[in-house]
């Protein structure tokens, strides 16, 4: 209690200082419309995951190849980081923002702030929330499901199997993009003359994929194929088949989705037949391409204009074309 006045003065001084600094700083702000190379900012979900490291590599390489400066921010799986760090990107004179959002719901303030600065926003995967983004890039999930159905049919015919009963394991109901995989699979496999006798949710979890498969085997012992919305559940399904004395690559054809390492290992070991691999590096390259079009105000042809969606192709991985790692 010896010098309250000094205390107050300091608070006032510091606050005034901040405002003064911020005031005169305005003149030093570089403009984004100058003659030098433009900058692209990428806000990534979390660099701890291999999927996003690959996505980041693809984005960075494409941005450099297109002559952009490149700035990266890592959201580290936090919606608060995502909003504040992406705001930091917007304040550095970037010409376009690419973001793989940890929390699509928090895209709102980011898109609002970006559009206030006339910066276009391209969303890479995950989801767009209910925000007003300019474009969103996602895997061609429906076609991935179709590829899985075709492969299943091919392998069943090659093995001389005549059974027509298959099952489809879905991710959690809230994963709307992932749900398209099962829709694509179901449509194609039905066209090929099979019947989807069981469609259950494994909530994207390996242990639920295992349990679901046990239930499917009990109800339909003559099942010949299982498609899973993601790889952990497919590996769980293969494990359940193994425990029931069957093979997920010969007796029942198991096909997963993602291209996760556990699935590649399972394919290598003959425990499951195939997986549909997403290509996050190509998705990254696609976002840069879209950013360029948005900067130059070139028209974009959307795969799904209503939701401004662009699809990136997926790959079928079998034992024949396993990546060597």
């Amino acid at each position, binding site marked *: *209690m*010896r*010098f*309250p006045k*000094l*205390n107050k003065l*300091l*608070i006032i001084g*510091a*606050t005034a*200082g*901040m*405002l003064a*600094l*911020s*005031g*005169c*700083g*305005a003149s*030093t*702000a*570089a403009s984004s419309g100058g003659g030098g190379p433009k900058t692209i900012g990428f806000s990534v979900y979390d*660099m701890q995951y291999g999927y996003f490291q690959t996505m980041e590599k693809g984005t960075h390489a494409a941005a450099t190849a297109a002559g952009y400066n490149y*700035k*990266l*921010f*890592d959201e*580290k*799986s*936090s*919606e*608060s980081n995502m*909003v*504040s*760090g992406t*705001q*930091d*990107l*917007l*304040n*550095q*004179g970037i010409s376009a923002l690419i973001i793989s959002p940890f*929390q699509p*719901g*928090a895209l*709102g*303030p980011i898109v*609002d*702030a970006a559009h206030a600065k006339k910066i276009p926003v391209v969303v890479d995967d995950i989801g767009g*929330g*209910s925000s007003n983004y300019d474009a969103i890039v996602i895997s061609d999930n429906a076609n991935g499901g179709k590829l899985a159905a075709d492969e299943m049919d091919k392998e069943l015919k090659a093995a001389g199997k005549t059974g027509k009963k298959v099952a489809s394991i879905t991710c959690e109901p*809230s994963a709307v993009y992932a749900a398209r995989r099962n829709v694509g699979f179901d449509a194609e496999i039905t066209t090929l003359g099979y019947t989807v006798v069981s469609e259950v949710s494994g909530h994207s979890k390996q242990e639920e994929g295992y349990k679901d498969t046990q239930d499917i085997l009990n109800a339909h012992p003559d099942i010949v194929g299982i498609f899973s919305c993601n790889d952990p559940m497919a590996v769980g399904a293969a494990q359940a088949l193994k425990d029931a004395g069957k093979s997920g690559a010969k007796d029942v054809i198991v096909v997963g989705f993602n291209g996760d390492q556990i699935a590649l290992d399972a394919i290598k070991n003959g425990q499951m037949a195939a997986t549909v691999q997403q290509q996050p590096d190509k998705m990254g390259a696609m976002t840069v391409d879209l950013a360029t079009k948005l900067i130059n105000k070139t028209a974009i042809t959307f795969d799904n204009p209503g939701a401004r969606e662009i699809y990136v192709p997926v790959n079928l991985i079998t034992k024949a074309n396993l990546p060597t790692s």
Partner: protein
Amino acid sequence: MMNETKQILQDSDASTLAPLPPSATTPRRGGLGSISWDVVWERYGIATILVLLWVVAYFNVNYFGNVDNFAEVLRQSSFVGIAAVGMTYVILMGAFDLSVVSTLGLCAWLAVTLASKHQLGLALTLPLLVGIGIGMLNGTMVAYLRIPAFIVTLAMQFLIRGYTFIVAGGDNALYAGKEYTSLGTGFIAGVPTPFIIFIIVAVVGAVVLRNTPFGRYIYAAGSNAQAAQVAGVPVKRTLFWGFVVVGGCTALAAVLLGARLYTAGPGLEPGFELNVIAAVVLGGTRLSGGRGSLIGTFAAAILFTTLSNVLNLLSIDPFVQQVVTGSVLLIALSVEGVRSRLAERLNRG
């Protein structure tokens, strides 16, 4: 977690409560009038470092001085900062509150949910009542049932988070209506709204701490709980109300953060509790209690945000950023430890 060590009431902030040994009130070498440089450093050291960092960054980091960027730094510092004002109260008493992260999630989810149902009045008040209620629960268990604050608040962290997951159904609440989100994203007279609220909370907090019996009780209880008890300070009641203050401040931060993000859910801001405690400790408040000030907390909250902003602007690798932040905390506190030991020795000699 009350600090029960036999420490005499040598802290200058407790000077109004008890007669002090003469050495504590006589100016030291280098003192100016009644100001002791030791205390000046303790209170304004971090604020000085903050201003120095600003000056260095202003001239050396592109876009740092940009008005938008600067406003953003102040805005971002407000959420941890407001909770840290409350946290200073309990840390001054040698306790702390680990449940703030879950209180933040619950109250922010509640605020966004109510706002999305167009109950703006409730969205702004009910979370505060919930935060205060959580503070009362924490305070009762720590102060009156004498359960260590670490146990109580850690258990409450799990409990509240679990409860929020159950009522929220695991989903984030979403709302983008301007009448609510402007609280988090707006400006008043060119200054970010959350920062204005942060300043008000910090000033009110400082006035209460310095000019009311409650504030003096806090310093007294934190310096030496037993001596304070003997001197007639209601130690338990003071500790109880300290927890209420953290709960209330955290809820206020939550209402603003929900408005900033347009969304909130049970998993909001992992590590928030440690960021808040780090801001208080970096601000010069001793974890053992009894010493510290809100000006330090205020400056430290902004310092942390400035640091992460500067690292972002310099495009420093995210993993390196964590190393830098950890190092700064470690260096600041080691220097502080060495400095206070030196000061003690000088005073004795």
